[in-house]
């Protein structure tokens, strides 16, 4: 029973990965920026699925909450504000596609080589304990409390900065 389940889940994961990559490709290649953003949402959801597969439930949901619920909403908002509806589709890509593609391919090859040649100190399945929300909270409030605070300050200042920048009449 376990093996069938596992196989099913493995297939599901690869499927999700494939879909994510597909959506990502769509996100960079679709001529309509709005569609691209939606495709990217697909990628994000896929990544959330990957997270779940890595038993990082909390992270997955936080990911969705922040990326899909907030960041992408903002992005789409910005698209709406900056894109002229009646415009015919302007060219969305520059003429760097070929070098970029070749460079990317080279990079990917390189990465694949690295990934497969590096001996990863992988621990045996099941020996890595499950990370509960409680654990995360504990770690955030103890070991990582200082970065946590710094991140908070960064966020606040980023928000204020964004308001100042985007305001119509300067403060």
């Amino acid at each position, binding site marked *: 029973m376990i093996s069938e389940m596992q196989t099913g889940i493995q297939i599901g994961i690869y499927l999700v990965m494939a879909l994510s990559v597909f959506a990502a490709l769509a996100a960079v290649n679709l001529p309509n920026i709005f569609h691209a953003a939606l495709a990217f949402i697909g990628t994000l959801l896929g990544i959330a699925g990957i997270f779940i597969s890595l038993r990082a439930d909390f992270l997955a949901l936080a990911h969705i909450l922040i990326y899909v619920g907030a960041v992408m909403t903002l992005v789409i908002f910005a698209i709406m504000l900056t894109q002229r509806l009646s415009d015919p589709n302007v060219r969305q890509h520059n003429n760097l596609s070929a070098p970029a593609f070749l460079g990317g391919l080279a990079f990917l090859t390189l990465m694949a080589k690295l990934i497969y040649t590096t001996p990863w100190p992988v621990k045996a399945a099941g020996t890595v304990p499950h990370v509960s929300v409680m654990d995360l909270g504990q770690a955030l409030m103890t070991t990582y409390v200082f970065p946590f605070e710094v991140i908070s300050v960064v*966020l606040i200042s980023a928000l204020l900065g964004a308001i100042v920048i985007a305001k119509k009449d300067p403060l």
Partner: protein
Amino acid sequence: MIIPLEHYLIFGAVLFTIGIYGILVRRNIIGILISIEMILNAVNVNLVAFSRSTSASPETGQIFAIFVIALAAAAAVVGLALVLALFRVRKTVLTDEITLLKW
């Protein structure tokens, strides 16, 4: 670990490369921004995967991912604000049309 670590890493690498590609080829700044987010997500995948498989303290990777998400949100906010401000001035969001500093 239901599937091997390397597959996750490859997945991350692919996303990363696609992100880089997006940055390189997109004319629209918002598109570039999306691509950047994609890169950050690729990194997140790697972080979580490592935390799940190799790390001695498994929560570290997740917490780093959380930080990355928070910073990505901040970056997106500021970036989009800049885009809006820019659009208001230049009426365009295409990188090669923003030539204010070029002679």
